[in-house]
């Protein structure tokens, strides 16, 4: 079984109007090479479901997004994502704003084939008011109201991992795999970029297979893309690129996304992109953040 694809093949599988889940968390382990490939494409009207960072900001800035399903969009050390802010403040995008735990429940419901999962989250808040599609229901077992968090069924999920083999066995060695396992399970098709492509024998060592969080049946395609999470991190291989994020963020106030896009993304391959940001060696030497 060989699931290897190019990033162009992967983006070729996407269609206008699709609902796309993006793994990672804020500035961490985002499939940015795939995001850049989407930015270079003519895709539009996407619904993005994500624990959002620059992935969401860039796609909004480039006019690719119809709707964002989110709990936050943030670059962590830069709390507010500049282009997501602009898109919201200009009224350019629809949103479904939910708690970050609700998003997890929605992905689980989709993965498990349930129409919804009951939860207390959202009760008493405006999350219920601004999302009329969120139903509050009576429990058959107690006298309380519950929120019926609907399944967040995804057409496609896009993820970046440390290592994978050609069958789609994916390893995340970083301290946290975030919700990537649930994004993989909630989608009809899941496409993964990886920093390293390894032989299947690599996972024979239980110390390595311990860091595989979903079955290969949940992976549709794999693309080798070293440094493909840049400027987000792929711990422990590299941290996030603080100066690059600062420049990205500053561009929103001076010139807008076109300035950033022209400098780093337009008319590039991922190889050319990496040259423009200092090369793979420089990416691989980005230090891990201290919390």
């Amino acid at each position, binding site marked *: 079984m060989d699931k290897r694809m190019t990033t162009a093949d992967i983006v070729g599988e996407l269609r206008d109007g699709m609902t796309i889940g993006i793994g990672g*968390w804020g500035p961490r382990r985002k499939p940015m090479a795939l995001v850049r490939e989407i930015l270079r494409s003519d895709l539009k009207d996407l619904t993005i479901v994500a624990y959002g960072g620059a992935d969401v900001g860039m796609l909004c800035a480039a006019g690719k997004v119809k709707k964002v399903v*989110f*709990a*936050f*969009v*943030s670059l962590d050390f830069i*709390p*507010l994502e500049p282009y*997501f*802010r602009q898109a*919201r*403040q*200009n*009224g350019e995008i629809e949103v479904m*704003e*939910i*708690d*970050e*735990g*609700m998003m*997890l429940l929605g992905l689980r419901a989709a993965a498990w084939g349930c129409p919804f999962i009951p*939860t*207390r*989250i*959202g*009760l*008493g*808040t*405006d*999350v219920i*008011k*601004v999302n009329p599609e969120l139903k*509050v229901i*009576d429990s058959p077992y*107690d*006298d*309380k*109201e519950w929120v019926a968090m609907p399944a967040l069924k995804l057409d496609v999920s896009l993820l970046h991992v440390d290592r994978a083999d050609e069958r789609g066995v994916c390893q995340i060695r970083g*301290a*946290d*795999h*975030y*919700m990537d396992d*649930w994004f993989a399970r909630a989608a009809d098709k899941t496409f993964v970029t990886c920093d390293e492509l390894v032989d299947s024998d690599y996972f024979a060592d239980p110390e390595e297979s311990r860091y595989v969080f979903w079955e290969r049946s949940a992976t549709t395609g794999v693309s080798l893309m070293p440094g493909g999470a840049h400027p987000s991190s792929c711990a422990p291989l590299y941290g996030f690129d603080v100066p690059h994020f600062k420049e990205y963020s500053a561009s929103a106030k001076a010139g807008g996304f076109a300035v950033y896009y022209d400098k780093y993304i337009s008319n590039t391959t991922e190889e050319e992109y990496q040259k423009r940001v200092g090369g793979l060696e420089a990416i691989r030497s980005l230090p891990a953040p*201290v*919390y």
Partner: protein
Amino acid sequence: MSTPAKEFSLAELMICAGAEAFRNDGEVLATGIGLIPRLAASLAMKTFNPDLMMTDSEAYLLSEPNPVGNRPDNFVQKNETWMGFSRIFDNVWSSKRHAMVGPTQIDQYGQANISALGGSYEQPKVQMLGVRGFPGNSISHANSFFVPGHNKRVFVAGECDMVASVGYNRERLPGGYSLDDVDLRLVITDLCVMDWQGPDHQLRLVSLHPGVSVQDVQENTGFDVYIPEQVAETVLPDEEQLRIIQQLDPHNLRASQLKGNPAGRR
């Protein structure tokens, strides 16, 4: 017997006052969002509530709070268990947690907002983070608030522009719930300490920081604060607390948290 500190900053006073929020919590996950709340929870864990649990703000539960900022190369953090984001929710929903958070807006009901300000929901004037984990935290476990600048833009009249967390608001109370199901604890500001134990869960003044008057508090709050007959002065830091804070924050990052790093006695 503790020795009162002669000199201390307002940040240090707020860290010590914030630690009190966790005093009687027992064995719960203490989460301080931001430097001063994190130091407050860490101080509580290092002094009067060693049963507290804390994370490294990444993916591990620790038996000892990590010092903030860069740590020496040979530093080994005291891991207890893996505690990645998905497992944090298992803890949150089990209610064994107390978070101290810094909302942009807090209203008379203790509802809070970090999502967006002004305009319409479709087009807010100022987009901030989004509701993040506020809805789930507030309905699941205890929450305290940290407010570095006590003013009417934070403590707003009416309701928050976007109510991200549940508070003591009968109008919004879900079916089957009572106000006692909501668990809001302390509010630590640069002026005072408050809680939500006034009549009908009204915001109540608990103690004033040195040099602050009742009038200062009321004038900077966009709704009525319940003022009891006796209002104490906030308990001042002692030498032992300052020594532990110094260990927890060896690079003195706390000095840059409040504008001008004011002294604790004004």
